[in-house]
């Protein structure tokens, strides 16, 4: 069954184009899948993967050339003319489409190398397609394998390790200091988006107690509610420094708001408990010399970006190993798929041919040896069936090997000629072989 991927990504299209062809899971995506499925032949399968960085349509049909229509189907699903996207669309077929999906799922094609969210997005896209009955014998195993490969790439290499954002880097640094963050208290100075995002990373890593201090108490209360924390009045925050383990400073103040004497005054009461100060405000909120105090670790936005960059550099090295793993998996999967799709009909034909010969020979024998008792005929039947099985065993195995071979079409034709099979009955994949 031919397999085609057609779509656009952050590598081929700017955001203005990508956003026009984006589909949201649970909303537009389901409707689009319905429209695409309706445009495919009866046994056609499709999965539509739509994230902020890519929109890709995976199609498997029994038609010889489904790709000509795939671009139309993709653009049509959004009610837009295909020509508008033509310069940005990239198309991959057969083995290359398999390898591409495996790379995407592993995060190798992501804007931030190895980012983990893509696994969830691939899974969501597949689940949505599966729920509307748009997947079948080709795309089901393909997407299952893609998710498996993504897991392998993340566990067998360090591709999924390290920080992917400033918030993530802050959470990782906090874990390097405290270990588990469960039971650790976080104090947020300022109720902006950055401090919220960082606090969410810390909460995801186990931090439970969150206090929010903001000049506007209502904003602090709203953010505290969203983070399942508690709002405190802004002038109370110096007192809270005694209790906090992690402080995220992200106010809009034009000057520093946390000073050395303020922190120094709580150190004795803290009894050398580490204090991790994350200053993600620009201009900075915390005096730089606060970081010189014992048991205080002060990191500003540049320090955290350096952590992200260092992790990204490490992931780039790991990506080479992950790429090799993906290639190996793609070749193996494509081989199995072709073997299944190409070899199965041919094996069936070969077996049918042998069974036909056996049946006709048995019929002739029955006429000649009609005097034999039924128990003898049972023995002859068993013998002939066993003989056919044994003769068919080696060709069956070879046909499956041929299907994964570079010159599979040629070899399959030889098998057909060898067994004098009707060519129409045998499988013809007509797609490019794996490299």
């Amino acid at each position, binding site marked *: 069954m031919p397999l085609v991927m057609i779509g656009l990504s952050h590598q081929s299209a700017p955001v203005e184009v990508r956003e026009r062809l984006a589909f949201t899971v649970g909303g537009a995506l389901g409707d689009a899948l319905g429209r695409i499925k309706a445009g495919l032949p009866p046994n056609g399968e499709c999965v539509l993967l739509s994230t902020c960085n890519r929109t890709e349509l995976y199609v498997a049909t029994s038609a010889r050339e489904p790709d000509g229509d795939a671009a139309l189907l993709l653009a049509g699903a959004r009610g837009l003319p295909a020509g508008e996207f033509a310069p940005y669309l990239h198309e991959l077929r057969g083995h290359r489409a398999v390898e591409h999906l495996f790379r995407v799922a592993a995060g190798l094609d992501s804007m931030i190398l190895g980012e983990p969210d893509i696994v969830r997005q691939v899974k969501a896209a597949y689940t949505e397609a599966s729920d509307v009955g748009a997947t079948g014998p080709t795309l089901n195993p393909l997407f299952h394998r893609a998710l498996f490969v993504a897991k392998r790439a993340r*566990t*067998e290499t360090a591709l999924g390790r390290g920080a992917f954002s400033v918030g993530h880097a802050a959470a990782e640094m906090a874990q*390097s200091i405290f270990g588990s963050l469960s039971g650790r208290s976080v104090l947020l100075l300022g109720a902006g988006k950055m401090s919220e995002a960082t606090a969410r990373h810390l909460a995801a890593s186990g931090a439970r107690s969150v206090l929010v201090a903001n000049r506007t108490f209502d904003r602090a209360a709203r953010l505290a509610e969203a983070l399942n924390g508690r709002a405190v009045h802004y002038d109370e925050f110096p007192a809270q420094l005694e209790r906090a383990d992690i402080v995220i400073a992200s106010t809009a103040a034009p000057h520093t708001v946390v000073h050395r004497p303020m922190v120094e005054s709580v150190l004795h009461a803290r009894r050398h408990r580490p204090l991790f100060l994350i200053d993600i405000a620009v201009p900075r909120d915390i005096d730089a010399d606060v970081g010189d105090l014992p048991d205080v670790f002060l990191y500003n936005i540049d320090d955290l970006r*350096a952590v992200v960059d260092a992790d990204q550099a490490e992931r780039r090295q790991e990506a080479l190993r992950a790429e090799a793993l993906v290639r190996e998996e793609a070749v193996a999967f494509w081989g199995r798929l072709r073997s299944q799709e190409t070899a199965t009909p041919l094996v069936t034909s070969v077996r049918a041919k042998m069974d036909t010969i056996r049946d006709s020979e048995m019929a002739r024998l029955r006429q000649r040896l009609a005097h034999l008792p039924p128990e003898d005929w049972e023995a002859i039947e068993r013998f002939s069936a066993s003989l056919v099985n044994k003769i068919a065993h080696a060709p069956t195995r070879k046909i499956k090997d041929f299907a994964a071979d570079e010159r599979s079409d040629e070899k399959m034709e030889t098998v057909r000629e060898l067994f004098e099979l009707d060519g129409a009955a045998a499988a013809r994949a007509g797609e490019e072989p794996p490299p």
Partner: protein
Amino acid sequence: MTAAAITLGLTLLLYLAGAVVLGANLFLRRPVLLLAGRGLAIAGALAHTAAIGLRCVETKSAPFATPGEALSVLAWMVVLAYLVSDIFWRLHAAGPFALGLSFLLAVGAGIAPAYRGVPDPRLMGSGAVSFHIAATLAAIGAFALAFCCAALYLVEHHILKSKHGLVWLKRLPPLLTVESAAFLLVAFGFPLLTLGILAGFVANGVSAGWYANTHVLLAFAVWAIYAVYLFARLAANWPPVRTSYVLLVGLALCLLLFFVPSATHRFG
């Protein structure tokens, strides 16, 4: 060559391989290396247990009756302390140190002539002397791991403060974990050391001029430095950087205690 010596040779190989593999894991961070390193450490500890057991059978004596044997038992204690620490605190970063130190101690045990020598007659029937040595060796094993934790704390503290080499933090246990692991190891080792010293007094009695005996004075110094550490950590509110330095000095004194010649200790 006896069965005990052959098994000790196998132990040496396992410790060395474990140290190398866990060291490689610190750089490469491969789960398979960590698994292999842990496996080698466990296999080494099992082989070492067998070597010590065989040695007891061969000499019909306590397993630390000669200098070589005492070194061997100390190496075994260090590895046991490491394995327990790895279970509780995931301290695999201490593996290269613990297995490397155990390897060196076991090499010392293997090449010490007295490993095949005549056992100390005092150990043939004295429970107090046996307990004195066993408890002291177990305490030093725990202190060796505490030393490693203290060194890790100082390295991590320096990285966090200087912000240089931050990628190493991902390869090391969290700062608070190594600090509390060091404390718990000392909290475990200190009572053993105290009991070991008391058992030594019980076994030998208080002889005249004990205060001029280097070994006795060093034993007191070791006891005092870990007492200071515990006091500083629990009551005096010393910063962890300072208490970590105390632990570094502590192990140096332990090694002096072990290796400085003594009139009262045949292999002390």
